[in-house]
């Protein structure tokens, strides 16, 4: 049962490749900042805190949609590890 859970946890990691990690982080900062500024302006101009919270909430939801899931475009550039050159080592030779 616990092995099953561990397998399940490993599947929940949803890793991104390195360039996409950098890209999503920057994208998240920009969209949240723009969302906060737009929400403040909308709230101030309509004189309503409710509108401000709605606009900011929408901007957070959009950011989450863009940043959180591991889209195929974010996982394409996996690191290429160096391939081992020696393939077969017989155990007898070490002994």
């Amino acid at each position, binding site marked *: 049962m616990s092995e099953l859970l561990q397998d399940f946890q490993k599947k*929940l*990691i*949803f*890793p*991104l490749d390195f360039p996409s*990690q*950098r890209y*999503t*982080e920057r994208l*998240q*900062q920009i969209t*949240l*900042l723009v*969302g*906060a500024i737009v*929400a*403040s302006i909308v*709230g*101030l101009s309509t*004189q*309503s*805190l409710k509108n*401000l919270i709605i606009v*900011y909430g929408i901007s*957070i939801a959009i*950011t*989450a949609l863009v*940043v*959180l*899931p*591991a889209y195929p475009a974010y996982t394409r550039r996996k690191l290429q590890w160096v391939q081992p050159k020696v393939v077969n080592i017989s155990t007898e030779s070490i002994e």
Partner: protein
Amino acid sequence: MFSLSQRFQTLGNQAITYGLFISVFIAITSWFQLQSQDADLVPSTIESIKPSLSFRTSRYYGSVNGKPKENAKITFDLETDLTPLFTWNTKQVFAYLTAEYDGKNTHNEVVFWDKIITSKDEAHLKVNGAKSKYNIWDAQDKLSGKELEFKLKWNIQPYVGPLIYGETIGSKDVLVQSAAADDDNK
């Protein structure tokens, strides 16, 4: 930013951080809005204040050892328009009618009446012949013979930011007649 949970955490942190900046922005802009609406210059008229005194022997009315304590009540007229106190950040306004007077060694302030105003539509106050909500007695001595200075003060309770206190312009001085003199008038 490697795993889903890391991405979720950084997103949440950043959203809350910007939320704090937004709330500071709200508090500052609403303060400037109050200034531009001249919230400190709201006029008020307090008229025809009639104090009446009674003696209470309950310790819930300030009596000590069964000695009768002078309790004061008033009736009054009040008119003011508190709409300049309402901004996009005002949750409610607490308006209270206070009286200031000098004690033996102290300067005292007592509240006779108050009202909670929750919307801009109710902000125009006009009461005639209203009775004070509270019985007032002096902790040291007695109220009769004291000169009370009545003022309407307000307290803005905002959604975000600190409480803001202030008072309206307009005050009224009333001398409290002693109970004996009051009886003579009757």
